[in-house]
């Protein structure tokens, strides 16, 4: 069992949990994810890793209450435990293979949508520690749903908050902010977008106008998360890839987003019936 050491509400229906999982904590790297399960009848739910502390043996996750399975997760309190907590899964971000010398001269732009802010955090933190220059766009529907702004400011040179309704920060979508930054002459060696599939698709279209290299992290359906089931297959550069073992990060320009979005809806009718509208924390922006 994997005990919840701390729980904190970040926004309405969004909570952060620090979970005791020493093995995951000591091997997690930026870009990877994990799978949790609550109870004997529970689903295997893929979640992004928000932070990890190998010394304390803890891993931080952020989750949003949107359907049956995420409600079960959200309902857990401090002191209670996950039945299962397995990871890290997937490949780490490419940049962990770069040496500090090269990272020190690099400028990164992250585009985080909603809950996608959580997995962006460990990447920004890592790059910041290696001396890279990092800027972050955080997008949310409204002010209440902006998460981790303060934490992000500690590790990023600049943080641009956008809200759809203009209740906080820049009024508009992350793509509008991205456009503004590019139009005003900013340049970046690499951009990374993590958020709902539809957001990543449009960030890709915008980034393309500026030939900005872009990585996206795909939150597909999954069962085992180890390459066994193929539920997570996506078409990248015309070839079928498994997001769980070949990803979750891919070159945005090679991803067939329309197929990926369509595949995410595969169990929608069953989920609506069982009232689990969503099994992946990243879906809501």
């Amino acid at each position, binding site marked *: 069992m994997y005990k919840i050491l701390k729980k904190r509400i970040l926004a309405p229906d969004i909570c952060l949990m620090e979970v005791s999982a020493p093995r995951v904590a000591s091997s997690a790297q930026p870009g990877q994810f994990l799978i949790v399960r609550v109870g004997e009848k529970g689903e295997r739910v893929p979640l992004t890793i928000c932070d990890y502390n190998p010394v304390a043996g803890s891993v931080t996750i952020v989750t949003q209450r949107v359907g049956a399975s995420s409600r079960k997760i959200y309902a857990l309190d401090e002191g209670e435990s996950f039945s299962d907590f397995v*990871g*890290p899964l997937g490949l780490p971000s490419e940049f962990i293979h770069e040496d500090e010398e090269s990272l020190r001269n690099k400028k990164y732009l992250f585009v985080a949508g909603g809950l996608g802010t959580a997995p962006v955090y460990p990447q920004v933190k890592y790059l910041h520690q290696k001396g890279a220059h990092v800027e972050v766009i955080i997008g949310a529907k409204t002010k209440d749903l902006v998460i981790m702004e303060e934490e992000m400011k500690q590790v990023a040179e600049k943080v641009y908050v956008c809200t759809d309704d203009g209740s906080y920060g820049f009024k508009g979508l992350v793509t509008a902010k991205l456009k503004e930054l590019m139009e005003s002459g900013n340049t970046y060696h690499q951009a990374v977008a993590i958020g709902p599939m539809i957001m990543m698709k449009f960030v890709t279209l915008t980034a393309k106008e500026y030939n900005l290299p872009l990585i996206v992290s795909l939150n597909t359906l999954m069962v085992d998360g180890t390459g*066994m089931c*193929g539920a997570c297959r996506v078409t990248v550069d015309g070839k079928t890839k498994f997001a769980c073992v070949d990803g979750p990060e891919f070159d945005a320009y090679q991803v067939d987003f329309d197929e990926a979005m369509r595949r995410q809806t595969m169990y929608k009718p*069953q989920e609506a019936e069982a009232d689990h509208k969503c099994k992946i924390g990243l879906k809501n922006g």
Partner: protein
Amino acid sequence: MDKKTRIPVREQDPIARSRNFEEVSYGYDHKEALLEASRCIQCKNPRCVAACPVTIQIPQFIKAVLDNDLPGAASIIGKDSSLPAVCGRVCPQESQCEGACIMGIKHEPIAIGKLERYVADWARKNKYTPEETIKPNGKKVAVIGSGPAGLACATDLAKAGCDVTIFEALHKPGGVLVYGIPEFRLPKEEVVDYEIDQVRKLGVKIECNVVVGRTVTIDQLMDNEGFHAVFVGSGAGLPKFLGIPGENLNGVVSANEFLTRSNLMGAYAPDSDTPIYVGRRVAVVGGGNVAMDAARTALRLGAEVTIVYRRTRKEMPARVEEVHHAEEEGVVFQMLTNPVAVLGNEKGWVTGLKCIRMELGEPDESGRRRPVEIPGSEFDIPCDVAVIALGTSSNPLIAKTTPGLEINRHNGIVANEKGVTSRPGVFAGGDVVTGAATVILAMGAGREAAKSILEYLGV
């Protein structure tokens, strides 16, 4: 009594069982088992034992059954197999022990599998566990994967006194026994969980949720956690697809996904949180045991099911019994048929398989006649879900993260018949070495590797 024919085994009615997940075969009762045991002629030089991958002393255990000494029979089997109730149910006996049975030359072979199941079920129901005296030898061994290979290896190592920990990637131990083989062929709680608990009783620890290659590497296990040797029995978990247009349409799933949802996640039961979808019509592509399992699962979930196979029934790799059961239950077979495309609607959902008729040509390298397309014979098989059951290959995760571990072109780990790999202290066996095979062959490989590990450790 006519000793030429075997005692038939009672089964659930085909129509009734095609709508439930309870076990198909009821197994022998005491009287039936005695009668069947009396058919064995107790060969001095038993061919059945030589044909058993784990060399169970078959005539001896059958003799014990006949003498009404069921504890004795259970102990004899227990010396060589830690999963007798599993093997009695899922082994392809017809091509192993029973295939070699001398009675089979002129008459029907002894129903060795059914007798093994009878003994194992008796032991479980009567809580009989053979005594084991274990003397610790101070050696720590890590076993990766809790499927048949890992369990068999761990059992022999534990009996020899090793301190064994099994690392399992999923949340439940058992490997293919829990995620692959359905409840109606192999009851999970009653049979699989019990036999795994028996392995635990030998002192074997099982740590779930550890994906070796991600959560921890083999080098870390050996360098930081003090394991003196490692056995890799991680199986062949990677699904193969057809590589035809439309394969990523919604509703096209691998048999692994379909069966994992139903078996491991319990999606066949209404109280599971994991969804599964069959629609009205399901097409299953493939002719192996996994294809039969997927087809029969879909049937039980309420679908009309068609199996699409490119050769004929004779070439089907599935066990005769499984094909027979599927047919009895109402699965339709489209033989000499090969899908060339998956058809879909405007919403991106599968609507059918575009297929072409085949005929058998010259034998290929496997000795089976190669199926050849008949030009112009295309036709459609409508379906709401297509399950692809074309086999699996090894997961490359461990090989990729273990420097010095040689792999073959199928990503399988290279190991000899004794389980020795290119890395000292690292042994491997089962599907990860051979590609997808059977439960019992994996167990045999696990036992061979256990011998090599004990030799390597000098105990």
